[in-house]
């Protein structure tokens, strides 16, 4: 499955990309699985996800928890806790 990954704030800075398109291995079922897989892709990813509990995710622009399923996802975003307002 091909999805667009988007990164924001210091997750973006650590990975060094705003977005990328990746083919997800079929065995990845949840956001947590995807985070673990990404963290193994290189130093910059390991740094971004060094504390996976801090990084938040959204699937197709909806907040998603680590146990949220990836099935059907087209755009998955990772970012720090939000500090708007």
């Amino acid at each position, binding site marked *: 499955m091909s999805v667009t990954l*988007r990164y*924001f*704030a*210091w997750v973006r800075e650590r990975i060094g990309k705003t977005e990328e398109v990746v083919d997800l291995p079929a065995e990845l*079922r*949840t956001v947590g699985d995807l985070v673990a897989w990404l963290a193994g892709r290189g130093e910059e990813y390991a740094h971004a996800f060094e504390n996976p509990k801090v990084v938040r995710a*959204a*699937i197709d*622009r*909806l*907040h*998603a*928890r680590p*146990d*949220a*399923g*990836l*099935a059907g996802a087209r755009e998955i*975003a990772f*970012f*720090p*806790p*939000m*500090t*708007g*307002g």
Partner: protein
Amino acid sequence: MNKAATVTIRLQREDFDAGAEAAQIARGRTDVGAVVTFAGICRDQEAGHGVAALTLEHYPGMAEEEIARHVAEAQARWPVLGVTVIHRYGRLVPGDNIVLVVTAAAHREAAFAAAEFLMDYLKTRAPFWKQEERPDGAAWVDAKEADDAAAERWDRPSERDAAE
């Protein structure tokens, strides 16, 4: 004259005129008895350090949708007659406007509650991130536990379902 509730949501780089937005929400209608306006402004000090400027990053698309979901939630909870939310992005200096929430209702309770609810959620759920220019360099702002607690008093909105 009674009208349907009016909802305005804008994300913009430009400044806004809080007074003009507040005046607009009640214009031409006589069923509004209370208008609450919240303006969030860039300060030059935060948590003991100086702030020369803020840069606000956002997730285009999701930010508008997330705000719209929270406005709909506010409308479901309280009888609001109008809601305006404007959130700026880009680089802002102390004294600059950051965010505006205007709520209109027949009575003050609904207008105050909806405005506080929206601000609490904008702080913790809307995909915006602040980077501060501090004397020792640029730093991303940490989320505040106090903001999380403030948002939690309204209960949690539904999140995407867990994997089946």
